[in-house]
């Protein structure tokens, strides 16, 4: 299961954010210490020592080790997020165009969901299912961003891109275009509706009629 | 690292290393070309720096209108390539006049 949301939370919330906050806090404290302890009224005579190669090398190595951990975690998470399954539970074809979205469900015998000015497109998906997306653009570069999934991918014209997403929570969520595509880019939104598997089948059946 | 050309060659070396690492991941002519191209450009700069000797003392006037005119001429000509041939011609003319003036300045030095 390529659960992009939990991958993001593990990588960002449990590793990158704590690490950067810790490093940042240490640096701020050191700067504040320097500012207080070595202000002119506290320290008249400046030190003449102008390098500390051993300390500096140890420091560089320490940073490298921390970065090594970050890079390893990133490569691992990315492999999971970028993975495309050969047998997804559902296939959806996405077409981006100025300035709406179109979602086709190949093999399901239902008409596509196409956005219009009055009614923006709906991406309806079943919960806890690997949804295999294939996306392209009809004109300029767009990008499909589904914040709840912590994921976006660019849609290029004359090219297809594939990615898998899993939605593990029922509900209705916003989606938007995230690559500036002209006048109405700000309004190029969509709605993602995550239904139970039963409700999704019912929705498909209703659309077939 | 006491000489500029050495510094430039060291930097070109860094770029080559990074380019080789990129090669391990991707064989894109564009991507590899950009990075190795920058390294090659830096080597050219290093060679130029190596051949740089103590500059000849050349008198430069405090004010050089021809230089400013050349620049404005180039600006108008480039802009003229989109706006219209008339501007392209005016700009080119001014740039040529400016360049002639610079040549005169150099000859007088």
């Amino acid at each position, binding site marked *: 299961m390529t659960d*992009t949301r939990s991958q*993001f939370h593990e990588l*960002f919330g449990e590793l*990158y*954010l704590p690490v*950067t906050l810790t*490093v*940042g806090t240490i*640096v701020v404290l050191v*700067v504040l210490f*320097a500012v207080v302890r*070595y202000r*002119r009224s506290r*320290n008249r*005579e*400046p030190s*003449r020592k102008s*390098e500390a190669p051993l300390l500096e090398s140890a420091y*560089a190595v320490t940073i490298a080790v921390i*970065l090594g951990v*970050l*890079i390893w975690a*990133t*490569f691992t998470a*990315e492999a999971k997020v*970028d993975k495309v399954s050969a047998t997804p539970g559902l296939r959806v074809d996405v077409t981006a165009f100025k300035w709406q979205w179109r979602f086709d469900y190949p093999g399901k015998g239902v008409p596509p969901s196409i956005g219009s000015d009055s009614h923006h497109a709906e991406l309806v998906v079943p919960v806890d299912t690997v949804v295999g997306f294939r996306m392209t653009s009809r004109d*300029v570069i767009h*990008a499909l*961003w589904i*914040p709840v999934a912590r*994921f976006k*991918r660019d849609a*290029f014209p004359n090219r297809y891109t594939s990615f898998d997403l899993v939605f593990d929570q029922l509900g209705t969520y916003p989606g938007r275009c*995230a690559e*500036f595509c*002209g006048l109405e*880019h*700000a309004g190029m939104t969509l709605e993602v509706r995550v239904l139970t598997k039963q409700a999704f089948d019912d929705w498909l059946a209703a659309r077939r009629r | 690292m006491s000489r*500029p050309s050495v510094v*430039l060659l060291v*930097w070109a070396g860094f*770029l080559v290393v*990074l*380019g080789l690492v990129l090669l391990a991941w991707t064989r894109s002519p*564009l991507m590899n070309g950009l990075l190795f191209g920058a390294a090659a450009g830096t080597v050219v700069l290093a060679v130029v*720096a190596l051949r*740089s000797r103590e*500059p000849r003392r050349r008198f*430069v006037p*405090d*004010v*050089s209108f021809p*230089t*400013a005119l050349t*620049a404005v001429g180039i*600006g108008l000509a480039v*802009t003229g390539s*989109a706006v219209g041939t008339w501007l392209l011609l005016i700009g080119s003319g001014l740039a040529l006049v400016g360049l002639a003036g*610079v040549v005169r*300045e150099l000859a007088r030095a």
Partner: protein
Amino acid sequence: MTTVASERPVPRGLLAWAAATDHKRVGVLTGATALVLLLVNGAFALVMRSELAWPGTQIVGLKTYNELFTAHGSGMIYLVVTPLAFALAVYFVPLQVGAAEIAGPRFALLGFWLYVCGAVAMYSGFLTQEGAARFGWTAFPPLSDSTNSPGLGSDLWLLGVCLAVGGMFVLSGCVLATIVRLRAPGMTMLRLPVFCWTMVVTTLMTLTTFPVLIVALTLLELDRRGVGVFTSSGGPAAYQHLFWFYGHPVVYVMFFPFVGAMGEVIATFSRRRFFGYHAFVISLLAFAALSMSVWAHHMFTTGQVTNQYFSLTSTLIAIPAGIEYFDLIGTMIGGSILFRTPMLFAIGFLLLFLIGGLSGIMVASPPIDYHVHDSFFIVAHFHYTLFAGSMFAFFAAVYYWFPKVTGAFLREGLGKFHFLFMFVGTNLTFFPMFLLGEKGMPRRVGDYRGSDGFTGLNLISTIGAFLTALAIAIFVCNVFVSLRRREPAGADPWEGQTLEWATSSPPPRHNFDALPAVRSFAPLLDVREGKA
């Protein structure tokens, strides 16, 4: 007793300034033009922030908003921060290396005027019928092609950028040539001041990547005229490679010179030799080289590049960046720090650039970038590095070097207010943007819905923007007041360490009447410590 050189009459008048070959005048011209454009592009930002303060379009429609953010972004990068960096370099590199003039003085003048012509061309798009360019400073095809962005305004923008960037390219050649050929006797490369070393790597990046942008935009312009350059299925991505190969190094062109100036400011106001000079030099070269190899981290979400390599090189940048912080803070530790305005801005730089840098490490991770790319998180990241970072450092440099350029101090009291309002304003403006991006607000949007939940944070950000504008207004006042009712500063008001302080304020046309011996990168400190 006067020398013959000092007797040469100083050319006066507007025309003499406009065609000056004195690098000091070219530096002042470039800096002054860039500062005026800072105000213009800052005004654009205020209009944008006013529009975004509340959902619904109240002030400008989407078309104008899109023109504004295109002009603001390209203006700040091409016409403000890059020229400000080169203005400092053109003025101070010849002085710091003990030269009488810049290498290729006429080229420097040419570079300045190409920049001005470029600026005029870019902004003249606003006067055209179809309007100014509005495809973002990145100008990605197919959006920027003649089908999707017809109109002369877009072409003027493209050509204007080529001119402005060409001007900067020429200036950088002069600066590098000065360092290579015109150093004073005794000044080996490893005795170059810290600011000059940052200019070495800055000019190297400029000379190797700015032409690539000119090529990219020229190809785009040809594409717009019917030559099918980026029309194949791989075309748009190819453009992005060419663009970002310039587009990443340029952010370091807009960073390193100011870091170098911070090295000088912190050393001077801590009364200490710059700490870890050799480590700093190596890390600068490594940092600049790495910065040439990370460009496709701007393309993580395209799915068309090898994310791993670019994620690796982008993350590794934290090592040389860390060394630079170590050396800057190491200079303060053990020092005797005086909190004049330059030092306040330098400390502000250290604290605020940190936020920009650390958020950069985050977005160097593709899975994190997949969420925050093209959102306000990224807008926050690059404004923390470029505004809270580089511009704070720029103002530190201005308060430090203004006395040398004009012979008068900038007012301390106004300077401290400038710092205070700018520190508070900058954080109020940009920190909420991290949260907005994480919440789901994309960038380059002139409006959002009330139901999005973005309103509160946008309102705070807009208030911060106006506070920041007030800070800039205080600075402008400071400049006028300080020039009107001058507080004279002598040759070396701060007990400086580098050669520009060994001559009068402002320096004479030929820069120096005499030079002290150069035994290290801090010749005047050596004299004071009895080492020379």
